[in-house]
C-alpha cells in the first residue's frame, strides 16, 4: 500500500501518514485505507444470490460487471437493518477482487500515521475483521482488514 504525503502535520516529516475513508455503521465509526477505495455509490437494489451467506447482500451492476455487495453490519455481527436510500456502497479493491461494502453513511477522510494505530485488544471471532484501532478527537476509529471481510471460498460454498 502506498502512503500519501502528510498533509496535517508537516512538522512530523519523519512519520508519514496514511489516509483513510471513515464511515458509520450504526453509531460506530470504521475506516478503510483510501487507496483501496475505488468509488462510492448510492444505494441500489441488489439481486439476491441463492444459498449465499447472510452477510452477502447480493450483486449489483457496476458498469457492466457483477459486483458482490457485503452488508458490513451483518458481517461485523452488528444489528442488521433494511437498506435505506441514504445508505452507500463503498467499492473496494481487495487484491485482485472487487467488492461493494454496504455502510450507513460515509463520514470523513482521516489521516493518521502507523504509530497512532493500535492492535485490537481481544481477538473474538468478529474482531478479526478489525485490523487496528485509533483514537481521533475522542472518537474511536476502527480500521478494517478487507481481506478478512471478503467472503472466503468456504463461506461461499457453505
Amino acid at each position, binding site marked *: 500500500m502506498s502512503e500519501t504525503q502528510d498533509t496535517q502535520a508537516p512538522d512530523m516529516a519523519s512519520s508519514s501518514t496514511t489516509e483513510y475513508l471513515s464511515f458509520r455503521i450504526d453509531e460506530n465509526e470504521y475506516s478503510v485505507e483510501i487507496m483501496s477505495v475505488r468509488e462510492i455509490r448510492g444505494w441500489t*437494489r441488489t*439481486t*439476491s*444470490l*441463492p*444459498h*449465499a451467506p447472510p452477510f*452477502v447482500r447480493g*450483486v*449489483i*451492476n457496476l458498469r*457492466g*460487471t*457483477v*459486483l*458482490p455487495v457485503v452488508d458490513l453490519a451483518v458481517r461485523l455481527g452488528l444489528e442488521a437493518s433494511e437498506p435505506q436510500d441514504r445508505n452507500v456502497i463503498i467499492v473496494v479493491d481487495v487484491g485482485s*477482487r*472487487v*467488492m461493494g461494502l454496504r455502510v450507513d453513511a460515509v463520514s470523513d477522510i482521516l489521516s493518521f500515521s502507523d504509530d497512532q494505530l493500535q492492535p485490537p485488544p481481544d481477538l473474538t471471532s468478529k474482531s478479526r475483521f478489525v485490523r487496528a484501532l485509533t483514537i481521533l478527537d475522542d472518537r474511536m476509529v476502527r480500521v478494517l482488514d478487507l481481506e478478512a471481510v471478503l*467472503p472466503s*471460498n468456504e463461506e*461461499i*460454498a457453505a
Partner: protein
Amino acid sequence: MSDPMQEIMASFFVECEELHESLVDALQSMADGEGDVETINVAFRAVHSIKGGAGAFGLDALVDFSHQFETVMDACRSGTLAVDDRLNELFLRCSDMLSDLIRCSRDGEAIDEATAEGLIAELATFAPQEEEAPAEEIEFQPMTLSLDDLGAPGDAPDLPPLDLPPLEDLGIAPPDEDTAPAAGGIKVVFAPDRELYESGNEPLFLIKALADLGDCRTSVALDAPTDADGLSTLGGRLTWTIEIDTEAQPSAVHEIFEFVDGLCKLQVEVLEGTTEAAAPLPDLAPPADTPAPAPAPVAEAPKPAPAPAAAPAAAPAPAKPANGEKAAKAATSAKASPTVRVDLERIERLVNLVGELVINQAMLSQSIAEENIPPNSPVTNGLDEFMQLTRNIQESVMMIRAQPVKSLFQRMSRIVRESSAAVGKSVKLVTDGETTEIDKTAIERLADPLTHMIRNAVDHGLEDAATRVERGKSEQGEIRLKAYHKSGRVLIEVSDDGGGINREKVKAKAIQNGLIPEDVTLTDTEIDQLLFLPGFSTANEVSNLSGRGVGMDVVKTQITSLGGRVTIESTPGVGTTFAISLPLTLAVLDGMVVTVASETLVIPLNAIVETLTLAVDDLKPVAAGQSVLCVRDQFVPVFDLGVELGYRDVAPVQEGTIALLLSPEEGVLVALLVDTIEDQRQVVIKGMQESYGRVPGVAAATILGDGQIALILDANDLVQNATGEDLVIKQKKVS
C-alpha cells in the same frame, strides 16, 4: 510497458503453437501417404523455426531436441534418408514431445528429459553423421587465411595467383606465430578480388571497421594487370596497406574480414617495436615498400589517413535520396498481410462494450415500450433497425473470438495415438470439418471432455483386432471426429465403428450399482443415458486408460457448463456416435425471463421444452413437499423455483401457476414452478466466478434492461442440488 523481449517471447510461444500445428499437419499427411516433396519441407521449416527462436531465448532443451529432429528431417528432404512407416511414426512421437517441450518451456515446468533423450537417441540412429557440434557453436571460428579454404566445389572463377611481394621485400619480418598482444600494432595488407565486389562487399567499410581498432595509416597501390586476361577479369587490382595502432589481436582483424575471407588476399602481421610503427609516414607519398609501379589513382583511393577520422569520412553516405518515399510505400506493402494479430484483451474489451450496447438497447426498447408509442411509428421502426444492427455487430464481434476447431482436433490425434498404443489397438483417426469455427474459450474447454470421449471410444468402443476381423471389419478401427454448423449451433461428433453400446450389459451394471430398480423397463435411449450417470463407471473395471474415476458424467457436466448438450446414438455392431451440441458463442444466450418471489431470473431457452399453466389438481403429492405432474402419461417431478433458491418457503400451489417443463438432459423431464413469464430474449452472459464464486444452481448473471442484475439458472445443477441425487435415477424410481 513490459519488456519487449518478454513480449516477443510470449509471441514466440504462440508462433510455436502455429508451427507445431503445421508440423502435425505435414507429418499426418506424410503418414497417410498424401505428402509430396513440399510436405517434408514444411515440417522441416516448422521445426527449424522453433529451433531458431528457442536458441534466441536460450531454451536449450528445446534447441537440442529440435536440432536432432530437424537433422533427420533434413536428411529426408535431401533424399538421403527414405521416409517409411517406422520413421513417420517416430516423427509423430517426436512432434508430441516437441509440443510438450514447448509447453514446459513456456510454463517453466520440468521437462521429461528421459523421454526427450530417448527420442533424441532414437533420432540419432537415423541421423546422418554430423560433421560438427550442434548449435552451441555460435561463434564463427576466425580462420587464418588460406585461399584453398573456401575453394569449395562450384566456387568462383579461378583466383588470380597471389601476387603480393615476398614479405622480406616489404621490409617486414615474417609474422610471429605467437598471438601475444600486438603491442606494436597490426599491419594489414588487403587486396580485394573481383568476387568481393560482386558479393556486395565494400572495401571501404572494412577499412572503416579496422579504424575502430585503432589509429590507421592507410596507403593503396594499383597492381598493373599482368596480362590481357588479367585486365579483362580484374580491371586492375588495388592493394591496401593499413597499419593499425592497436593492442587488438590479429584475430580481431580476421573477424572483420570474415565475410570476404577467400574473396581477397589478406595478410595480417603483428608489428614489432611501438616507436617505429608510431612514426608517421609521409602524407600522400606511396609507401616506399609498395611494390606497385604505378601510383594509386587518387580518385579511387581514400585519403591516406593522417588522422584516423579521415577513413570513416571517406565512406560514401549509403542513403539514397528517393528512399523516403519508397520506404513509406514499402511499409504499407509489408503490412498488407491477410491477418492482423490482436491482443486478446482488446477483443475482450470490445466484447464487453458490445455487451453494454446490447443491454443499452434493451433498456431503450423498454423505455419506448413504456411510452406506448404505436407500432410502425418512426421511433419503433428506427428501434427495430437499431436492434438488427446491434445483433449484427454482436455476431461479428463474436466471430473475432471464433477459431477453427483444427487445433483441437490435432490434439485429439495425439490422444488417439497414445491411447491406441496403450491398449494395443490399431486405430485410425479421420477428421472432418476442421475449419468449423467456434468460440476460443469453447475450444480450450472442450479439450478435456473430448479427450475422455476419445479414450473411451478407443478403449470401450472399438473391438480388438481379432473380434473386428471375425465381424468382417477391417483390423484397424476408425474414430471419426466431425465438426459442423447446424441451425445456429456447432455440432461436434465423436464416432467409432466399434461394436456399439452393449445395452444389456449397461443396464445390468446400472442395476448392480443400484442406479435403477431391477424391474424397470427402459428404452434404448434411456439405457444409453445411463452412461452419463455419476457412479456408473465403477472401480472394478478400471482400465489404465479411460477408467480412473473420471466417468462420462464429468464429460456431460463439462459440456453442460459450456451451454452444450451431449447425445448418444449407437447401433449394435456398427458403432457409437457421441454428439456435442454447443451454442455458437458463449457470451450470449437465448433465455426466458421469469420472476419468482419478486426476483427476476433467466432460464436458458434450450433447456425449456414447454410452458404450462396449471390447475390446482394437476399436481399430485407423492411425499411431504414433493409433488409430481402428469404430462402425457409421464410423471414429472415438480420443484418450486422460489423454494429451491431459498427465496421463499413452501406454499400451496395457486390456480394458474406457471410451470416450465425442462429437460436438463435427454429423456428426462422436470417441472419448475415460477410466478410469471416476463419475456423471451437474448441476454449477455456475465461471469460470476471471478467476482464472487460459484453459486449452486446458477450458471452466470446478466444485466436486464432496467440495469438490474438477473441470475441465469443452471437447470441441471439446480435440480441435482434440489434432489441430492441424479434425476434419471429419481425418475426411473418414480416411474
